């Protein structure tokens, strides 16, 4: 197929990781995927690849290797950039034709992105700590949530940024997706035990 010729698939992606000496589960790869406009996991389009690297002014493997730390830092500390990468990750992560992310997938991408953003300050003025996020995951499993919609994905970031882990700034009249309302109710109920 023609498209195969224009795409780098799983094997290629792993080789790319080797060439760039980066762990395939390094969060920076999500920033790279964003820069190169990857349509899906382990898929690169020729055009995205070319314009992406050109915009980053990288034409050699050495330059590519060299730019990764910069992207990693930018992703951790630049709120607007984090937001862009976070948002793009949903579309990147979901299977074609699906409207939501399976919980497992959503959780692993949150696991890459959120701690990175929290530690680097990209979620400022959030007061959430990486450990406190576990309550969110516990809720999703406890209530047997299956999929995460695009709206839930985006609003969670907004929620973490503006509402504190004790929910004092939470307004139940605001337009949070109902899953977030359910989470707050769940977390308050489980406050002592978790």
């Amino acid at each position, binding site marked *: 197929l023609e498209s195969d010729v224009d795409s780098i698939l799983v094997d290629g992606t792993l080789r790319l990781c080797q060439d760039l000496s980066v762990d395939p589960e390094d969060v920076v790869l999500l920033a790279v995927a964003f820069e190169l406009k990857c349509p899906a996991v382990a898929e690169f389009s020729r055009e995205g690849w070319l314009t992406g690297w050109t915009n980053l002014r990288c034409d050699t493997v050495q330059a590519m290797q060299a730019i990764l730390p910069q992207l990693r830092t930018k992703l951790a500390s630049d709120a607007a950039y984090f937001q862009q990468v976070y948002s793009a990750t949903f579309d990147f992560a979901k299977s074609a034709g699906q*409207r*939501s992310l399976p919980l497992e997938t959503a959780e692993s991408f949150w696991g890459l992105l959120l701690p990175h953003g929290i530690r680097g300050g990209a979620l400022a003025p959030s007061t959430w700590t990486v450990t406190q996020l576990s309550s969110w995951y516990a809720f999703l499993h406890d209530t047997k949530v299956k999929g995460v*919609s*695009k*709206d*839930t994905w*985006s*609003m969670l970031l*907004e929620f973490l940024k503006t509402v504190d882990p004790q929910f004092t700034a939470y307004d139940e*009249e*605001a*337009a949070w*997706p*109902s*899953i977030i*309302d359910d989470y707050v109710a769940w977390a308050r109920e489980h406050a002592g035990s978790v």
Partner: protein
Amino acid sequence: MPPATADLQTTWNFLEEGVDHIMTRLREGVSYSKYMALYTVAYNYCTSSRMHSSAESGLGGRTGANLMGSDLYNNLIRYFVAHLKTLKETSDPLLDEALLRYYAQEWDRYTTGANYINRLFTYLNRHWVKREKDEGRKNVYTVYTLALVQWKQNFFLHIQSKNQKLANAILRLIELQRNGETIDQGLVKKVVDSFVSLGLDEQDSNKASLEVYKEHFESPFIAATEKYYKTESEAFLAENSVSDYLKRAEERLREEEDRVERYLNTNTRKTLVGKCEQVLIKDHSEIMWEDFQNLLDYDKDEDLQRMYALLSRIPDGLEPLRKKFEEHVKKAGLAAVAKLVGEGADGSSSDTLDPKAYVDALLEVHKKNAETVNRSFRGEAGFVASLDKACREFVNRNAATGTSSTKSPELLAKHADALLRKNNKVSEAEGLEDALNQVMILFKYIEDKDVFQTFYTTKLSKRLIHGVSASDEAEASMISKLKEACGFEYTNKLQRMFTDMNLSKDLTDQFKERMEQTHESAELEINFSIMVLGTNFWPLNPPAHDFTIPREILPTYERFQRYYASKHSGRKLTWLWNYSKNELRTNYLNQKYILMTSSYQMAVLVQYNNNDTLSLDELQTATAISKEILSQVLALLVKAKVLINEEKDQYDLNPSFKSKKIRVNLNMPIKAQETKEQTEVLKTVDEDRKYVIQATIVRIMKARKTMKNQPLIQEVISQISQRFAPKIPDIKKAIDTLLEKEYIERVEGTRDTFSYVA
């Protein structure tokens, strides 16, 4: 009589004697000739053209003018002043009623006389006075008015200057009357009227002004009234009940209104009544509000009526009553249901609650309080609203419903079903119509009208297919009531069900006719009737399992299938064996019985045409009915002793079956179906609601394009609340769904604004 050319002195001497006669001795009478003489002299003087240079310069002083009069005018003033001086002196030692009598008597005499004098000096009035006024002179009056002005300045103000002696004398009489004594009201009226007469508009003497009345009488009167009733009401309440006080206040207000009628100027009404309302009602409204509950508790209708009438006279007087009434009705409703639930055998289960008892309990509370509203509160809109609000509360949430919002509509629909069935206890046509109207009273308060609708539809379908409806008229009447309350859409399905019933009757007849034409009568020994019901309009589900059509009825079944297919090609018939029924004639017993059965029972029983004993497995193979249902079907037949079940899973036909009745009804509902029905109804309602909420949001967003979260939720609630009370989490879930389906999206950069995706 002095000649026309007589000088002023002569003329006035003549006139003064006449004037004094009229003013003081009118009773002795004045002869016509004397009156004419006086008139003529006054006329002559005014028309004489000679100059009275010296005298004319006093008042007016327009010497060149040929109108004479100022001398006469001034002499009249001097006369009035002198006349009033004697009245002053006589009145000085007088007090109270004596003063009033003297004042009134003199006022009569004075004003009567002044009227004559006025006419006597008509010519002066018409010419000299008129010209003076035309030229803008102030303080020149026609003679009668002049007399009043003089009375006011030289007599009235003089008495009043002594500690308002005159007004106080009136007030003292009024106080006596308030204390219950009889007074001369005519006297008071006369004096009070004089106060009004003395109010002269300086600009226009024809216009009455109430200035004197207000200043010298009304203000002190109102102040005295306030003081009197403040003291009285406080003292009265200290020693009497609020109920007695209500009566007293009502009487007092009526008395004061009468007082205005009897002897005060009508202008005083508003001020007086306003003041009385303030002192008698407003200043004691707290204590009335407090006593209201007491009156309600003891059904003191008359007192309630009185309290309502009184408090309705002051601003905001009724609002606390409306609130308390609402609370009272709500409590009464809750207590009535709590009592009913408490009386239940096991004291807790609302499943066993009798719908009629429940509905009656609610209606009784409504009826009693609706009567109170109409009788004691004159059906005032605010109290009607309180009643409605309270009823809405206890009808939807009470001890029987617990947290379920569907219990009340369910019980009400069940009650309506019982009413509309044959053999109901109120089947007298009028009684039924009335009972249905009562159902509508509660229906109005039901929040989840969609739940009622679903239960009602289910129950109606049962009544129709089992042919147990009390009457078509009653059904139609109820549907038209529901239609009136909720609109065409609400009852559309119900009406379609009736249409299907009627069409089915025709279809059955046509089919029978057709078969008689094409078949031998021997082939048509089975009586067959059919109901063809539109899938979308009937809450009926086909059986979830197979069914082998017994060969006894198979030919009929096939004939109808063919007939229907030829009549309506393309329509698909689904046979609802689970709802059909049969009548079987026995011929294996000495007595011939007619067994009324369900189709499943029939399918089982016809197997015994060829066998006397069959096992459960054999029966299942023959009928294809699921074992679960089949064993319940068999249990009923065994219980009715048609079959005998001596060995496990082995069923024998009972050769010695006996029954007192020839027609034996074996078609009893199976328990499992009953409870399933209820949960299915509620599931249907839930699904419908999700759809309704989503559709409403889409409709709103399509019209508004963008909307914030809060207003959107409010709008959804207000649009849907006619049918049911949507819960906010359900609305939010619908929003989630629509976001996911991309009917709407969040507006970029905002957290709580949505926009419609075209």
